């Protein structure tokens, strides 16, 4: 048998889940050694713990539209920290691999760019799951230690929604990483996107409403385009809170969509995830950058 025939004996298929798993495990191992990842995790866990400790004594009070202060504060924390973690983690990853030359190491093997990108995405999603679970685990632990435990089902729901938000943001991060040339540019772009979805989205919408007297339906649609706002809405619904807390858009949502609003919010986050990952795959496959 010739060398070529030997080498082709186990010819690879176009897409192999085995390779996706190998790359995902490698990414999780890398993330577990990344100081930025641990810094974010520690910050998120510390803040979640602190919120729980300070909010638990009042958790039986009604506030923030009908759900506990702990949960409301955790939603606010997640809105800020999780998008920042996921966007920067995703944006730095492939661009960092490109900067260090390890992307060439991966791509000179019989793996496709799609397998590399999706394996990276799955690995980073696993890392984000660990980070979110750790943060909410700390919140639950502190809550239990204070003899006034927050409903564990509520925490699990909130953690699951936080992870869904992180999946959408990771997709955007990888899209950035697939299209820029260096890790520093990717990081800068990710921070700009974070500002846009977390702060400029809110301020922009408020300004637009004032300036254009936007109809409430259009206002709701504008709010829901933002995955962070969709997360907030889904969280309020999942925690059995009142959407009135979200102002006229929340009231409109209840009137217009009733119980289906949570599905819409989840659909928005899922659409962002699929669209961002799909666009990242296309950009990475098309790119010449190694």
């Amino acid at each position: 048998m010739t060398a070529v025939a030997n080498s082709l004996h186990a010819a690879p298929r176009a897409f192999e889940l085995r390779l996706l798993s190998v790359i995902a495990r490698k990414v999780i191992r890398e993330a577990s050694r990344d100081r930025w990842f641990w810094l974010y995790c520690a910050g998120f866990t510390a803040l979640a713990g602190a919120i729980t400790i300070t909010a638990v004594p009042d958790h039986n009070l009604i506030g923030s539209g009908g759900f506990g202060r702990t949960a409301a504060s955790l939603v606010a924390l997640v809105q800020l920290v999780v998008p920042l973690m996921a966007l920067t983690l995703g944006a730095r990853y492939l661009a960092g691999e490109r900067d260090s030359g390890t992307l060439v190491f991966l791509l000179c093997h019989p793996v496709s760019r799609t397998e590399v990108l999706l394996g990276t995405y799955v690995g980073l999603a696993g890392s984000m799951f660990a980070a979110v679970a750790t943060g909410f685990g700390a919140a639950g632990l502190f809550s239990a230690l204070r003899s006034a435990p927050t409903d564990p089902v509520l925490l699990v729901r909130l953690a699951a929604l936080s992870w869904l938000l992180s999946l959408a943001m990771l997709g955007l991060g990888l899209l950035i990483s697939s299209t820029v040339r260096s890790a520093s540019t990717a990081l800068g772009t990710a921070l700009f996107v974070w500002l846009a979805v977390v702060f400029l989205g809110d301020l922009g919408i408020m300004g637009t409403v004032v300036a254009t007297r936007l109809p409430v339906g259009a206002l709701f649609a504008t709010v829901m385009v933002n995955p962070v706002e969709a997360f907030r809405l889904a969280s309020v619904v999942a925690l059995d809170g009142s959407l009135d807390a979200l102002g006229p858009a929340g009231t409109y949502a209840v009137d217009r969509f009733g119980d289906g609003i949570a599905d819409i919010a989840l659909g928005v986050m899922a659409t962002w995830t699929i669209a961002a990952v799909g666009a990242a795959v296309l950009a990475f496959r098309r790119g010449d950058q190694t």
Partner: protein
Amino acid sequence: MIRVDGLTKAYRSKVVVDDLSFSVEGGEAVALWGPNGAGKTTVIRCLLGLVRYEGLIEVGGMDVGTHSKLTRGLIGYVPQELGFYADLTVAETLALSSELRGLARSRIGEVIEAVSLGAEAGKRVGELSGGMRQRLGMAVALLPDPPVLLLDEPTSSLDVTARRRMVSLLDSLRGPERVLVITSHRVEEVGMLVDRVLALDAGRLVHECPPGELTGRLNLESWLHVVLPSSQTAGALAHLTAAGFNAQENGHGVLVGVSPEDKVSALGCLREGNFEIMDFEVWR
């Protein structure tokens, strides 16, 4: 084994490989030779299917443009700038590579021994010297025992001892079914390792010849810097010029233009004239 037909690659509007055609048969060792910017590394990246290109490339009879994953299974590649995960050990790096190729781990020990990295198997890649990293690059490339080896400037970052060891290793890898494609800008190295040279300039194939003919075809010249006592410099310059050498004064000695295969004749000329040669080095 490798067929390239009308390969053209441009980055934005800059053409870096221009209508390149060549083929390499099984058992052949070929050098892509050329100055920096000649397009050698780009050709290698096209052969690997890492970048998009125009034209046709076949490896093992398969089109790289449509089957790059499959053709990469036939290729072992040592890049010029080795990018490894610094936190992984040598053995972990090879384990990752074998997982990516779907190979049995039993092969790892063999390649570690083949490149003499046995003592460093447990060392982190970030702790390795340049020469050791180069050998690790070779180990990764040899892991699948590939029929095609692409080596991009395999000795460029090595000191003299490591370079000699690498040349010896590369020589031992030649076989009746294996193709070696080496990029280099060192004429002497090319002469030791390959059967045929493809000389590139600005992305175009300018010469295709046996390595021994390369210097003549390209009118290449090296410079021999000979250090002499300052009192003898003027006399040596006159002596060399009279003997037909292109010589000029330089610092503590003379610079003599020589062909890469005949550097010793200038030294012989100076010895015949009883000049005291204190030191010498070759500049290119």
